[in-house]
């Protein structure tokens, strides 16, 4: 691949570009002040509202059952499912009274659920979005939108149909996969130049690096 240096120089250029963007956003408080910065920070990270809902429902179900049994016990009625005394005795005797495989499986499932919630809370929760520069408004674009715009540009540069181009956009990388039409060569450099040009116009933050893969086997009859 002779465009390795090309990509790397683009990467360093991207880093400088991102910094200058941040500086200009800070030095011009008029269009995009601190409030806008906060909005954009919040837009690029997950709010965890869905997970919070799941967690709350889980706690509500557990508490609801506990409330029922405690209430029944408090007014001296017979228990609904299990008497607290019996439950406690069974829990104390735990490795006995239940097949170890079942116990281990229950434990593993509970631990996995716990890990899911814990990681959701601890990880940064970045969304698949990029910021775009704008004079007036804060602009957030989903990576899918950026990918489809780049795919269109790559398709025009490679002169292939829509199905022959697949673009994957992640936080720091753009991968363009092109399957050429059989017998019609596709210039990797032309596709790379077109995609880089589009990205330069778009100037997403953070600026991703571009990699172009041209498949060795072509598509027949496209």
């Amino acid at each position, binding site marked *: 691949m002779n465009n390795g240096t090309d990509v790397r120089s683009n990467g360093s250029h991207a880093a400088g570009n991102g910094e200058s963007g941040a500086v200009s956003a800070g030095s011009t408080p008029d269009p995009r002040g601190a409030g806008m910065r906060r909005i954009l920070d919040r837009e690029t990270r997950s709010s965890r509202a869905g997970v919070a809902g799941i967690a709350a429902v889980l706690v509500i179900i557990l508490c609801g059952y506990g409330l029922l049994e405690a209430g029944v016990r408090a007014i001296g009625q017979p228990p609904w499912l299990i008497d607290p005394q019996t439950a406690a005795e069974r829990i104390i005797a735990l490795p006995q009274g239940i097949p170890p495989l079942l116990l281990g499986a229950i434990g593993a499932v509970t631990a996995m659920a716990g890990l899911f*919630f814990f990681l959701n809370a601890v990880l940064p929760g970045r969304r698949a979005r990029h910021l775009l520069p704008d004079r007036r408004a804060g602009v957030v674009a989903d990576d899918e939108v950026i990918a489809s715009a780049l795919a269109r540009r790559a398709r025009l540069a490679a002169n292939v149909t829509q199905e022959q181009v697949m673009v994957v956009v992640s936080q720091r990388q753009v991968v363009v996969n092109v399957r050429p039409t059989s017998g019609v060569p596709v210039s990797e450099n032309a596709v790379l130049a077109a995609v880089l040009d589009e990205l330069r116009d778009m100037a997403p933050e953070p600026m991703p690096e571009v990699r172009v893969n041209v498949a060795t086997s072509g598509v027949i009859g496209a």
Partner: protein
Amino acid sequence: MNNTPRTLNRILIGILGLKLLAVGLLLVALATVPAAASWWQQWSAGVWNGMSQLLQRTSIPGRQESWLWAVLALLLAVLIALMVAWVAQQGKGRSSLILAEDDAEGLPGNVRIGGGVAEQALRAALAERQDLAGATVATYEVRGEPALKIRLQPRQGVAPHLLAADVSALVEALDAVVGKRVPVLIHIGTGARSRFSRAERVR
């Protein structure tokens, strides 16, 4: 954009996750390690002894039930109410006014412009665009200040920066009408309508 309590979400989800993780690991240890099982039986029997003694000491006069059960029921009810309140906090922050100011010092009264003005104007301006599969405009309150969120769903292949430039020109026109620069967020995203619609081939 909305006022979802994000830090609270992270803290509460993290607490729940750690507890579930601890319980699950304990169960796995009980199932696999014999030493853990004997330790558990001793330790938990001691804890349960203490609790049952406490329950006997706190029994309601004249009856054998402990009043601690009623307290426990009350605590659980409070916890449930807190959970409901927590869920109700998610996604809050919509507001109805885009502007509320007293700009004429001497005169009584103030000016209020509803968010519907911005929403209707922008939606009408965006409705004619062929490259959009959908657009919604909503007013939010960010730190007590009104802000606009414009959500655009372009068709496949539309360059997001050009779309953003066009829409921000519309926003600047709106600024001139309203007379105040409101923070604006343009979110260019995908939805089912833009994903399954035909790519725009000519532009």
